[in-house]
């Protein structure tokens, strides 16, 4: 038990505010469990929400690689997500226009290959130029992908969508809801561990340099175009995997989710969580989705019904208000990046005695004093 608490305090929690944030998250978890045990919340509903939050966490992790690591402005999160979802749906659903009914593995593989290909295609003309070119091109891509799916009915079924997408791993001795929730947890763990390894390394360091000053990275001999391309492709592939997962979670897909609003939510999640922080991306996604889903039920609360106003459509307002609050009191997001981007195996022995084991950058100070130097 004490080993666990040491691990938690050294790797997860870095300052008192973080302790409070994790305490709140822990409390919410306890409440949810109590809710299920007392029958207030249906376990199926909760597992579905977990899977949904997990999917958004994957999307946020993907955007965090692009924007958080490398400073790339990608406004086509929804497009890459949609590419993944449609790859899975088209290949695996027996009644999709392709009618193949393949094993889900092929859907995921196609999602990875196609999204990587399209990311490279967008990256080639834009990543050599100033950062705003990618922003504009990605805005265009989002609309193009949506238009293609809507209009190429013979391939995509258009606005009527694709149903009959199979469940994942239905042979597991779990309910379908529990299986998908378990799968998303595994997906997040794999992506998280992958990103943790690549980020705290010379590779991650070059990306962070590019993010704050690309010319400097060039002057030091770094092929910034190549690094940005790698970050862009990795992020896009993660988004597409999230999309493929969603297809198997929802079992139905149509183009209506490929709207800019999805992209907006992911951006909010990353900024809210702490740009550049993987932990932050996951927590940010959970918070944004909790607000989005939670506010659906606002109108059911008796007190609010007596007021006679329709609150649910105001959920964007809640999200906006939350962002303003957090940016006011915790400028760098809920869980800003703390680790020095140094290969962990190398720092144990040879770092200076003065360095504390967990992240030597004293940004506890910078983060909480609202310093304007960051």
């Amino acid at each position, binding site marked *: 038990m004490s080993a666990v608490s040491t691990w938690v305090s050294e790797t997860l929690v870095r300052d008192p505010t973080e302790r409070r944030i994790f305490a709140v998250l822990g409390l919410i978890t306890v409440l949810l469990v109590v809710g299920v045990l007392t029958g207030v919340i249906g376990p199926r509903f909760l597992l579905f929400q977990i899977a949904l939050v997990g999917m958004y966490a994957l999307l946020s992790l993907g955007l965090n690689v692009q924007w958080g690591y490398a400073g790339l402005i990608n406004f086509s999160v929804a497009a890459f997500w949609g590419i993944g979802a449609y790859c899975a749906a088209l290949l695996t659903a027996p009644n999709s226009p392709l009618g193949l009914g393949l094993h889900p593995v092929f859907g995921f593989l196609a999602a990875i290959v196609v999204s990587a290909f399209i990311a490279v295609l967008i990256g080639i003309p834009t990543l050599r130029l100033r950062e705003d070119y990618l922003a504009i091109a990605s805005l265009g891509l989002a609309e193009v992908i949506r238009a293609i799916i809507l209009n190429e009915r013979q391939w995509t079924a258009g606005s009527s969508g694709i149903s009959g997408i199979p469940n994942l791993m239905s042979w597991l001795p779990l309910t379908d809801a529990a299986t998908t929730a378990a799968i998303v947890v595994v997906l997040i763990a794999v992506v998280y561990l992958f990103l943790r390894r690549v980020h705290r390394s010379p590779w991650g360091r070059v990306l962070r340099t590019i993010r704050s000053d690309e010319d400097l*990275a*060039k002057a030091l*001999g770094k092929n910034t175009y190549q690094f940005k391309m790698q970050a862009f492709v990795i992020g896009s592939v993660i988004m597409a995997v999230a999309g493929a997962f969603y297809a198997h979670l929802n079992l139905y897909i149509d183009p209506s989710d490929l709207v800019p609003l999805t992209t907006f939510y992911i951006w909010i999640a990353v900024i809210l969580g702490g740009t550049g922080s993987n932990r932050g991306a996951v927590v940010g996604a959970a918070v944004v989705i909790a607000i989005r889903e939670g506010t659906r039920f606002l109108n059911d609360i008796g007190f609010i019904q007596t007021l006679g106003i329709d609150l649910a459509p105001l959920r964007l307002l809640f999200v906006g208000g939350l962002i303003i609050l957090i940016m006011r009191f915790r400028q760098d997001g809920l869980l800003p990046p703390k680790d020095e981007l140094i290969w962990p*195996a190398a720092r144990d022995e040879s770092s200076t005695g003065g360095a504390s084991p967990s992240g030597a950058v004293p940004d506890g100070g910078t983060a909480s004093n609202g310093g304007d*130097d960051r």
Partner: protein
Amino acid sequence: MNDGAYEGAHLGKDDVVLKTTDLEKAFGGLVATDGVSIEVERGTITGMIGPNGAGKSTLFNLISGFYENDAGHVTVNGEDVTDLEPHERARKGLVRTFQTPRRLEGMSVREAMLVGPGPQKGESIFSLFFSGSDVTEEERANIEQTRELLERFEIGHLIDQPSTDLSGGQMKLVELARAFTTDPDILLLDEPVAGVNPTLANDIKRFIRELNEEGQTFLIIEHDMPFIMDLADPIIVLDQGKVLMEGSPDEVRSDDRVIEAYLGGAGP
């Protein structure tokens, strides 16, 4: 000043690291670099001076590839690098610093320093997964080099500081140290002591001299006359995009054309 006054730089030196041939660059109607041919000999600290707007920074940008030239060539160690990207030129041994210090947000001094050495094995995702121990070994060596270099530059105590918290002068020192970790054949420094207090400026001078004695070649733009006159030899004087002259500090100091250029030039 008539055109005949522009004598040009000394060419035909022995062991040339960096050479430019008839470099030209115009911004709209403004010719910022006007047929500049210079040579930097290996092992020297070559200075570059000239009044504000003479085109010194522009020339650096052309040499390092950040600006595209209209005409002319840049050669490093005898190899034409005119068509190469900035990062490729850096790999060829031509490394520059910037006039305004570049602050790396969210990075400690240690991290900011560790971006210098290159190309590193750990910059490849493949190596991170399949030759982790090589990455570890290289990273250890680089951390050790960083520590030694910062200590040598007498800023060892700053290693854990956020790099955004450094003073301008300390930042210039870190930049010099980092540029040095790239193991360059020639270091181009753009105003290394601009806005730096005199004590720190003296330190920087001392460190540059030390590195030079160990064989490092420098080309240094500097506004601070006593600083550059004390440090560099030869000195190239730029004026209105052209090379006015090149000579020893004494020759430059006593040259009427140089005095005239600094006094405002456009005489009768």
